[in-house]
């Protein structure tokens, strides 16, 4: 029983890292007022770039870095349209996702079925990994998982306890006031959009280097969209993002568990649907619980800023 729990827990954490990284990135972007619906596309580009760099260099760190940067660069396209050109951010984000799908579909063709060259193996942390159950669940993961653990408090501290974080949040609430205070709104928003892209790109690289090593067309399977939904669940707070991501990972782990044990308590196709169904259910509850309270999202989310008015 305990072993089963450790097994499920380990896979749950493993399955939640990509969503967690992408959610953290999107939280930063949305806090500054930029809604980027291109997460799915940026994740795909990050995943492909990770594999390609891995094959070319054989260096896992370079591969992960390249994946993150690829996501960041793609995010800058959205940044240019959303921040500089001030177009509709929903459309620009959707276009970014379609672009990511298309670009990876044709650039990734030669890599299909190829060994990734590198893979990020589980790296037990000496000492911590030997703690019963908890060690198995949390400390026998890959490097990127540990990085994600660290990024959660870092993101939170950065957003809520530093001056820059205050500026970011202010840009997302009332850009005109930030501008009047002599702070460059566009620069903040560009940096945050880029950061969001880094998170999504890294999330994609995690999928293609650690989770299911190798490249497969549309291998993200909607995790980018789940991440955007989890931003709402987390009420734009990095600490709460952990809960959302772990919840998604847990449902994925249950699928593996039932498959491995051969029990079919719940039909396989229902299990496959569950992460998506429950993400919607979560959004319903978050909205119902928030009724009457003031705080929704950043007030200026999705609203372009221009001095010309």
């Amino acid at each position, binding site marked *: 029983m305990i072993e089963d729990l450790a097994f499920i827990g380990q896979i749950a954490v493993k399955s939640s890292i990509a969503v967690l990284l992408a959610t953290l990135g999107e939280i930063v972007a949305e806090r500054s007022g930029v809604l980027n619906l291109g997460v799915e596309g940026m994740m795909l580009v990050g995943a492909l770039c990770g594999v390609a760099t891995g094959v070319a260099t054989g260096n896992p760190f370079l591969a992960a870095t390249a994946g993150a940067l690829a996501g960041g660069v793609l995010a800058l396209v959205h940044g240019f349209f959303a921040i500089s050109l001030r177009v509709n951010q929903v459309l620009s984000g959707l276009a970014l996702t379609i672009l990511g799908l298309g670009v990876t579909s044709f650039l990734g063709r030669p890599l299909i079925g190829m060994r990734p060259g590198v893979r990020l193996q589980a790296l037990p942390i000496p000492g911590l990994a030997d703690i019963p159950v908890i060690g198995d669940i949390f400390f026998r993961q890959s490097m990127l998982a540990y990085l994600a653990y660290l990024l959660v408090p870092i993101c939170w501290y950065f957003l809520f306890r530093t001056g820059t974080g205050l500026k970011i949040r202010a840009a997302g609430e009332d850009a005109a006031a930030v501008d009047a205070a002599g702070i460059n709104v566009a620069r903040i928003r560009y940096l945050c959009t880029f950061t969001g892209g880094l998170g999504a790109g890294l999330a994609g690289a995690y999928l293609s280097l650690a989770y299911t090593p190798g490249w497969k067309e549309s291998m993200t399977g909607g995790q980018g969209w789940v991440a955007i939904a989890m931003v*709402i669940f987390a009420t734009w707070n990095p600490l709460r993002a952990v809960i959302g991501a772990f919840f998604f990972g847990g449902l994925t782990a249950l699928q593996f568990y039932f498959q491995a044990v051969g029990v079919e308590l719940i039909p396989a196709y229902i299990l496959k649907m569950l992460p998506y169904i429950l993400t919607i259910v979560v*959004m319903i509850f978050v909205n119902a619980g928030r009724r009457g309270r003031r705080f929704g999202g950043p007030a200026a989310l999705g609203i372009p800023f221009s001095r010309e008015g």
Partner: protein
Amino acid sequence: MAWRIEKRPTSLAPAPVWAFPAALGFAVAVGTCIFAALGANPLAAYWVMLTGAFGSFFHFSEVIVRAIPLMLTGLAVAVAATMLLWNIGCEGQLVWGGICAAGTGLFLAPHLPPLLVIPATIAAGAAGGALWALIPGVLKAYLAVNEILSSLLLNYIAIIFMEHLYFGPWRNPEGYGFPGTAQIAEMGRIPHFFGTRIHLGLVLALVLAVVLYGALRTTRWGYRVRAIGLNRRAAHYAGFKIRRHIVGVMLLSGALAGLAGMAEVSGIHFRLQQGLAVGYGYDGIIVAWLARLNPLVVPLMALLLGALIVGGEQLQAVLHLPASISMVLEAVLLFGLLLSEALSRYRLVRRPPAANSDVTQEEEAT
């Protein structure tokens, strides 16, 4: 004489005529770069795409075949977006339209009078899509759940369910293990024209485009929908029942997408199988916005995207270039449209040379 760029005095300036040609030009330019980067002659590649799409009556008929579902999903996105609702779930609604049409054709048809089979199939397809769109509609109207995310996540659920059906309970027992349902009998298939694969869906889509255009311009319902889209608060104070309109418009939008799925199943595949959910729902978003949400323009833009898809397939067949280039070009087309929209907020003005510092003004304006 000096030129300068200045912001248009009003933000309500009508959409410029050149926005679409500019977007098309942008996409062609980016496509040229892509072809060149892939080591292909861009002129040859575009020639293959053009002749592949318009080179013969047969090729053009295939463009129309692709355009039919795009017209319907384009209309679906457009009608919702007129009210500022984002229906990103057309793919799932299309799938449900297909499931219901296939179910009717396979299991209900033997019990129906032959004349009723096709009307029942069409109605089932529309109903399937509408009911699937009802979920995000109700969630949006009564619980303020973001319809972009809910409708999109429902796509994945619909596709998993469809796969379950044709891999599992609906699988053709005589299909030699091939994943897919049995074929729909002849009487359950919608009629075809001119000896091609062009089917009744075309008539349906064109009629619906005209009807929607008329309804949005001339009826009281259409006025309300447009008013809510333009200014929700004002519409609320005018006493319009906004929640009811959200649910109603989502139902209509879903029904249109469902018809696309119905037409694919009863007009093209004749069974439920892999290849129904190939992204027509997402392409509908591009079609709708290229058409600037005008239902009468939607069929034209659907033809353009259909030509792009067929042309992309020809690239693969003739030049062995990946067909997914057409998907990249679709995204670039949308970006191009956004770009020209942004530029259209400004205008070029010719001014007599002024004594004072026009130069600095110029710099500021750019």
